[in-house]
């Protein structure tokens, strides 16, 4: 992207910011509410069956936390501005220091007044909330402008502001009540598992330069076969539950591998455009699973009841407060995700196979010249990617929902791809991004339970908005493998 365009983008942000700043000031002037004494209680114990050592609740005074949040925002803004001194001289420093502090205060006051107004049930609450959000966008833009060259500190600043914003929002949403923080984080992890597996599948495929947009369809088909195989084993053959689970898992992996192979044949052998192939596989998967489930699963209910995996507590580790219930009291498939993630990382970056895969993804011709079989590498990787997506499908059935429903993946495959980009094509990065999306999902459910005065449809949009903002936030940072999406042709 050329520089002029980037400047235009920031100019847009600042123009919008100025407008909203005026709105904010008007609001501050007209609103004469005061913040009542309120506090928010976060329960940190996971539940009665948890093995973790009990700890006390975390009680935070709402108003106080808001002020702290505003101060931190202002500090981050000012700190970012101060960093400019080294590079760009005094004029810009002064402007951005002021802008940073104003942005921080602005975000805090906007959000604060949103809180106050919402408690009074006023119409303007939405506007004030928007103002707070605009303040955040403003700060993010500022941070981006300042750290355009230093990318690591940009991510840190953005992450810090985002985490604070979410936490502050939660404090407001749960004011005068108590909500279980450990439970929230635990369900966030659970919701991020299919997204993380989809992202890992994407990493495997794209590292060897095959774009896999069919992850959604692979997960859906695998979920269907996990339900079918698991149920047949459990309810027809009356296998013990662990054997039925393995049977379901086998069905899912098989379906994923077959679809991966199909994509590989189309993309590698026939050199079909990979996005067309993926889209067609997705539509095929939707049609096939809807047809088969209406034909088989809805007529024979016991074929759609494979049972859900029990939680397995890891001894000792599960007794750590807060962390134990989140990470070490989950079902086997969650642990499998951790294993797959670690294995993928080690394989990609510390083995010969991984080096070859990355070479094939960056410059297939060079790899071919050195004697690497590009076609074979892509076949293997895409099939493995299909199996990882299949694991995601199996998790949806065996680890989370327990029955197959039409269209049950609901865009998780695509969000997984976004997580892959956000995680810069790295297994652990992808998992981190998946955690963010999973948290957005869990938070939305929690807010619905807390009966926040925001329409549920807007809360449902949140994960997708987060996805888009997250993707837009990594300007210039996410660089795909060089040969991504191009079929390779031997000479």
């Amino acid at each position: 992207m050329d520089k002029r365009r980037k400047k235009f983008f920031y100019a847009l942000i600042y123009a919008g910011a100025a407008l909203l700043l005026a709105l904010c000031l008007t609001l501050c002037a007209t609103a004469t509410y005061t913040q009542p004494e309120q506090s928010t209680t976060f329960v940190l114990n996971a539940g009665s069956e948890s093995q973790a050592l009990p700890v006390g609740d975390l009680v935070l005074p709402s108003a106080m936390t808001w002020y702290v949040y505003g101060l931190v925002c202002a500090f981050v803004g000012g700190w970012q501005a101060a960093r400019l001194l080294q590079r760009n001289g005094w004029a810009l420093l002064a402007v951005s220091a002021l802008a940073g502090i104003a942005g921080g205060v602005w975000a805090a006051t906007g959000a604060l007044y949103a809180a106050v107004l919402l408690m009074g049930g006023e119409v303007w609450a939405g506007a004030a909330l928007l103002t707070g959000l605009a303040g955040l966008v403003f700060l993010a833009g500022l941070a981006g402008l300042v750290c355009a060259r230093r990318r690591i500190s940009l991510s840190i600043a953005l992450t810090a502001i985002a985490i604070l914003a979410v936490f502050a929002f939660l404090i407001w949403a749960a004011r005068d009540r108590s909500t279980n923080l450990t439970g929230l984080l635990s369900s966030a992890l659970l919701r991020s598992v299919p997204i993380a597996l989809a992202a890992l599948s994407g990493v495997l495929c794209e590292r060897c330069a095959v774009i896999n947009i069919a992850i959604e369809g692979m997960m859906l088909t695998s979920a269907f076969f996990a339900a079918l195989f698991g149920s047949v084993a459990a309810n027809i053959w009356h296998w013990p539950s662990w054997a039925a689970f393995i049977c379901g898992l086998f069905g899912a992996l098989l379906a994923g591998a077959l679809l991966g192979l199909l994509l590989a044949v189309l993309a590698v052998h026939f050199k079909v455009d990979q996005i067309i192939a993926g889209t067609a596989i997705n539509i095929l998967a939707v049609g096939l699973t809807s047809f088969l489930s209406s034909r088989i699963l809805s007529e024979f209910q016991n074929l759609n009841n494979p049972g859900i995996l029990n939680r397995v507590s890891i001894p000792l580790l599960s007794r750590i407060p807060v962390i134990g219930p989140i990470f070490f009291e989950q079902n086997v498939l969650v642990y499998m995700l951790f294993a797959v993630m670690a294995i993928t990382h080690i394989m990609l970056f510390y083995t010969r196979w991984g080096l070859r895969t990355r070479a094939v993804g960056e410059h297939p011709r060079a790899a071919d010249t050195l004697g690497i079989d590009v076609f074979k590498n892509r076949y293997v990787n895409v099939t493995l990617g299909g199996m990882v997506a299949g694991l995601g499908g199996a998790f949806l059935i065996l680890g989370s929902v327990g029955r197959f429903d039409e269209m049950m993946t609901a865009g998780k495959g695509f969000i997984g791809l976004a997580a892959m980009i956000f995680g810069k094509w790295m297994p652990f990065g992808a998992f981190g991004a998946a955690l963010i999306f999973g948290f957005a999902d869990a938070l939305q459910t929690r807010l619905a339970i807390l009966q926040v005065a925001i329409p549920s449809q807007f809360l449902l949009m949140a994960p997708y908005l987060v996805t888009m903002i997250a993707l837009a936030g990594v300007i210039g940072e996410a660089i795909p493998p060089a040969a991504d999406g191009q079929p390779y042709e031997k000479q």
Partner: protein
Amino acid sequence: MTRIRLNDVLLVVAPIFLALFFTTVILLAVGASPWDAYRNILAGAFESPEKIADVVAACVPLVLCGVGMCITFTAGQWNVGVEGQIILGALFATWVARNLLWPQAPVLTLMLLAGMLGGALWGVIAALLKIYGNVHEIFGGLGLNYVAQGLAIWLIFNPWRPADGATMSGTDPFPDPAWMPRLAHLRVSPLAVILALLAVVVVYFLLRGTRWGLELRAMGKNFRSAYLLGVPSTPRLLTAFAACGALAGLAGAIRCSARYGRMIPDIAGGQGYLSLLVALLAVSRPQWVPFIAFFFAAVGVGSPRLELNMHLDSSLGGVLRASMVLAVMMVAGLRMLLNQRRARAAGETPSQDVVESGDAAG
């Protein structure tokens, strides 16, 4: 020579048989008679003038979106946000229908224009995200689809709620002037058909006969070199997305005005994704879109018959369509391999088209 010609014929017919074979296997696997199933689909689509009219009516949004997508494909862009653009078009048209109580001609005109505006707006947002935010248009488009869906449901369940409570069946029916006139008792609106055909002709000439079309094609073939040769890529991308969005929005306006006569949550009904396949099969040639859309629409109108007569789920139609696309791609790939082998046998160097083309049409 005769052998080659025979091959070419086979390569055209083979996908159809491959797809039929695949669906037949599925039908046999679930213990249904394939022959009955195909006969039912055909009868469901063509047995009476009413049914044929339904097929033509179902064709219209597919043609509009398919033609629109030809524009973005030509520019090398994956506009998968068409679903959301249809919804936005329908939302804008609904707003006009609910708020302007004028005679039919101005209301309908305004509805269609508003629909185009709404769709174009949503398309431009995806393009802006792509250009200034570096968000790949696939993610921008899909994200915007979900946002549009949420927006539609919120509007239907809150501000536009019918007096007797909101349901998934949508808003109150539009006032009479906002209904598109239909042909006698048939469920097809001549105006909509004319608009769709007009769109085909206009887009064909825009892409073939104008500088704008040429520049879009250059961008689709090779974005970087088009940019270096002085094609203003930002305005071209914006206009391409806006044009595609406008056509999709028009489809949305037509769907809620001519088909449902109200706004429903499922107004897009997967048309966006289907038209993606239509545009793919048409290889971004607008003149082929109506024929492929007709076939897709016929399968779509015919499949519910399966449910009535054979207790088979109508999603079999979806399987048939998707496997058709996969088969066409496989056979096209096969044809390319054969051509290369032939070229290699003749001692020529194989073409580099495949490696270099970022061309969405493939």
